[in-house]
């Protein structure tokens, strides 16, 4: 039970970040590495903000905003300064590493164990019945991610959201619609990195400290979640086991969150089976490659039938 809750907590935290990666990877078709630095940025800002006595709930918005700004920077470098997409992300990722240390007050490790957080504060302690406390974190995380997901779903169905989807699908069409495709990309990157930073904020409050190394491999986790989730629950032009079982179809955003939980469950399983952490990254890589190759294979088949 503890394990299950643990996996859910981890999966939900990183699920928020995975929603961001879903925007860049699936919708925008933009390989954005900056999430590796916006995740710890959210954590760093949150640690500093909590120490400064800022309301924990407010830090969620603060982190999202700051992440969005960083996303704009990546977009600006790519769109206006005409640097290749991958490189723009790397530039921001590298630069933010130093900035993150500054955001954290020059420290690489900032504990906030004694501060109020969204998970632990007098208000919650006052209204929550005792029996609920083991599930409290999962409940709060669930609430946050549902809000994020619903907002994202709603956004993707607005006119602006349509345009965002169009720019990843067919840039030329966005130009034809007399819209600057560059600005749309910047907007998308802003939202994506906002989510990543928000996830970092939640991570920091959940773990009780900020550590500069928390960003390592964020993008890999995000991509794995997106790919696992989408392949599992709503594969392109394919039929998922959901339709085979006559279950209702889910939106990609839901699939991505499920993917994040599944990924964390796999890691947890690997650890409890005695897999050494030394090998985990290699295994993640291989898992990743296999999923990509398998899905690419499918895509080809679909095309040749068309």
């Amino acid at each position, binding site marked *: 039970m503890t394990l299950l809750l643990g996996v859910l907590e981890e999966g939900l935290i990183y699920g928020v970040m995975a929603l961001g990666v879903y925007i860049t990877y699936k919708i925008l078709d933009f390989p954005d590495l900056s999430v590796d630095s916006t995740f710890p940025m959210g954590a760093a800002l949150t640690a500093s903000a909590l120490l400064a006595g800022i309301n924990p709930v407010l830090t969620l918005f603060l982190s999202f905003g700051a992440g969005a700004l960083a996303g704009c920077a990546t977009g600006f470098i790519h769109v206006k300064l005409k640097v290749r997409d991958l490189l723009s992300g790397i530039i921001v990722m590298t630069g933010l590493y130093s900035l993150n240390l500054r955001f954290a007050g020059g420290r690489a490790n900032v504990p906030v*164990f004694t501060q109020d957080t969204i998970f632990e504060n007098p208000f919650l302690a006052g209204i929550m019945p005792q029996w609920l406390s083991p599930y409290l974190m999962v409940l709060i995380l669930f609430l946050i991610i549902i809000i994020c997901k619903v907002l994202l779903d709603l956004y993707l169905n607005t006119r602006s959201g349509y345009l965002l989807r169009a720019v990843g699908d067919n840039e030329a069409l966005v130009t034809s619609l007399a819209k600057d495709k560059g600005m749309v990309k910047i907007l998308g990157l802003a939202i994506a990195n906002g989510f990543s930073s928000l996830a970092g904020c939640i991570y920091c409050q959940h773990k009780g400290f900020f550590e500069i190394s928390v960003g*390592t491999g964020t993008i890999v986790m995000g991509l794995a979640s997106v790919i696992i989730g989408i392949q599992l629950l709503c594969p392109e032009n394919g039929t998922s086991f959901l339709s085979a079982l006559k279950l209702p179809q889910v939106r990609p955003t839901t699939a991505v969150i499920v993917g994040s939980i599944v990924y964390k469950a796999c890691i947890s399983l690997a650890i409890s089976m005695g897999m050494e952490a030394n090998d985990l990254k290699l295994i*993640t890589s291989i898992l990743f490659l296999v999923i990509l190759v398998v899905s690419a294979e499918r895509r080809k088949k679909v095309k040749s039938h068309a």
Partner: protein
Amino acid sequence: MKKSFRTFVAAAMAVSLLAGCSGSSGQTATTAQDGNPAAGNASSQAETSGSQAPDGGKSYTVGIGQFAAHGSLDNCREGFLLGLAEEGIVEGENLTVLYENSQADGGIASQIITNFASQKVDLICGIATPMAQTAYGVGRKQNIPVIFTAVTDPVAAELANADGSPVGEITGTSDKLPVTQQLEMIRAILPDAKTIGIMYTTSEVNSLSTIEEYKAAAGDYGFEIVDTGISTTADVPLAADSLLEKVDCITNLTDNTVVASLPVILDKAAKKNIPVFGSEIEQVKIGCLAAMGLDYIELGKQTGRMAAAVLKGEKKAGEMNYEVIQEAAFYGNAKVAENLGITIPEELSSSAKEMFTDITQ
């Protein structure tokens, strides 16, 4: 359109592979001897102890989470098990050890601890600051006592109150360096030296606080500290070159990044005939002149004894202040001294915990 993804994915995979590699290369650089008593039979069967039989028949399950693979940290773990054994808690007899190493990945670290918690361990041992913090974060919610070690500044990490008393069911040992004793030793070996160079990683908290301590104490021994900050392993060679231009000797902290690249620094220093002092036994073994340092095995033992007290129910973790190692020990390397044409004073070498006669590569 899809092509950029292929590149992207390839890059992402390369990055993750590299991260994996750098972790293991750090290991080969610093782990000279590798007993690894616990790593082999780690956690394959996770039977919970549960059996709360009357005295003598008790058995325990302990989860050891280590933040990174690193000679000193490995020694800590080894010492920890020895310390437990001294108190009659022996692995394989009445102790089940679950050991995991997070390879410096914060995400993995928290999953490791959650796993321990789900297997209802009696105690979690967190080695190095981030792992100790993660363990505390989980442990305090699950009511599992946490013992930490190799945390340089438990107060700054909010793992202990300013007076050393516990913040919760958590206590352990600090690997704070014996700075004044190190300075005293350097003065004894190099009577004419004026400047000491220190290289550190700007992102490592422990290094920052130790440097401050060095700067504060250096004047008392007639030294001036020249420090140079780096951010990654790749910066080490250039930083070493520039540092070596300015100093009479170099002393090391327990800075993970710098320690992992120590051979590079040693090589450059040897060419300029500048002595390099270490901060613990492993560094002396691979070519530092001498160290007034921590014996991490001893530190681990001390930690293990504290853990035993908690497991046996003699004391609660929340009742014990964290401890620092009582005695710093002298380690010297005669081969290095010979190469440099330096004689280590008799009173030091005779009191040495260990003198090495060659350089382990």
